[in-house]
């Protein structure tokens, strides 16, 4: 059991998917404009990553290496489409917020990366622990990035419609650049630099 625990904990900081592996940057940068979006994306990624790791760990014994990538992709794409349809039917508000980024979970290299690097070589329980750890790590990274971007880009901090606080000057003159794509890259780069400087990340 401590084995699975190790696989879970590693995803949080030491091999954080966004901050250390630098995987899944497309959705991480695209949706990190608000904390709501970050949490919604985490939920979608969680379902797909957990499903992909479980299925791939289960079939890893007989998947021939030459067709493994297309098989993984088909499985991941199917899971993403299922999640997309279910969100559309049962969580329409979240579906509208995530918009185009929900189908784009399929190109999240973090999911294929974990399938290829971990679930195809490890037993079920450890693959589940890996998926959970990576999801939490993904969430930590997305929430950190979107906190900074939402704060500077809108001057207001609100989660799921509840306003937490409003900054005096920034809310009048928000720095819209932080909501736009360049802001995503800047915030990610500065966060990475900060975390390495403070010794949180050892690469």
């Amino acid at each position: 059991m401590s084995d699975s625990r190790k696989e879970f904990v590693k995803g949080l900081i030491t091999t954080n998917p966004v901050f250390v592996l630098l995987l899944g940057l497309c959705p991480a940068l695209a949706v990190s404009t608000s904390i709501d979006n970050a949490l919604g994306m985490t939920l979608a990624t969680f379902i797909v990553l957990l499903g992909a790791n479980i299925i791939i760990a289960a079939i890893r014994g007989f998947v021939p290496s030459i067709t493994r990538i297309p098989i993984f992709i088909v499985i991941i794409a199917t899971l993403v489409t299922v999640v997309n349809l279910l969100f559309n039917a049962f969580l329409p508000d979240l579906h509208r917020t995530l918009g185009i980024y929900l189908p784009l979970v399929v190109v999240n290299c973090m999911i294929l990366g974990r399938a290829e690097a971990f679930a195809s070589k490890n037993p079920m329980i450890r693959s589940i622990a890996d998926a959970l750890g990576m999801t939490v790590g993904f969430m930590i990274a997305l929430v950190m990035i979107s906190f900074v971007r939402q704060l500077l880009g809108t001057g207001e901090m609100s989660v799921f419609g509840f306003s937490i606080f409003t900054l005096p000057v920034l809310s009048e003159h928000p720095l819209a650049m932080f909501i736009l794509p360049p802001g995503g890259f800047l915030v990610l780069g500065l966060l990475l630099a900060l975390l390495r400087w403070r010794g949180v990340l050892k690469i």
Partner: protein
Amino acid sequence: MQVRDALKKAFPVILLTVVVAICVSLLTAVGGITLPRIEAMERERILGMLSDMFPDMTRYSLEEEIYTIYKDEDAIGYAFIAVGRGYGGDVNILVGLEDEATVKGITIISHTETPGLGSKIAEDLFTDQFASADIDDVALTRDGGRIDAVTGATVSARAVADAVRSTAREKIDLIRGD
């Protein structure tokens, strides 16, 4: 022996085909279950928008993609969906008409514009400008109309104004043709 070798060689292809077949059936099943729900919710959402736009509405009829809004037995307006080409993709707009020359109001059904900039086209500050506008005046101020653009999102704002105006003209021709 040869058969077995051939099968062994073909195994990856057969497996991939099986996986794809399973995935396709799963998707068909999920799609079949969710589609009616998605459509019903979309209809309900548009109905909600219509009754916000026409508070007096008691019923509506839908013909050739034009909603005719009734208060009891009198037609009090029309509504239809216009599609604008925004900065990030299509913008779907529900447009209400008071009569054959005046806009009642608009509501953005869905869009994929830049959050924080283009997304402001969905806010009341922008959409309220369309209320009671003459159709010929529906254009950005810099294009000679009466709609103020959104700062930093001229493309999105123009997409909405132009789609509302041109679609309204088309639909009015259809309504008059009836």
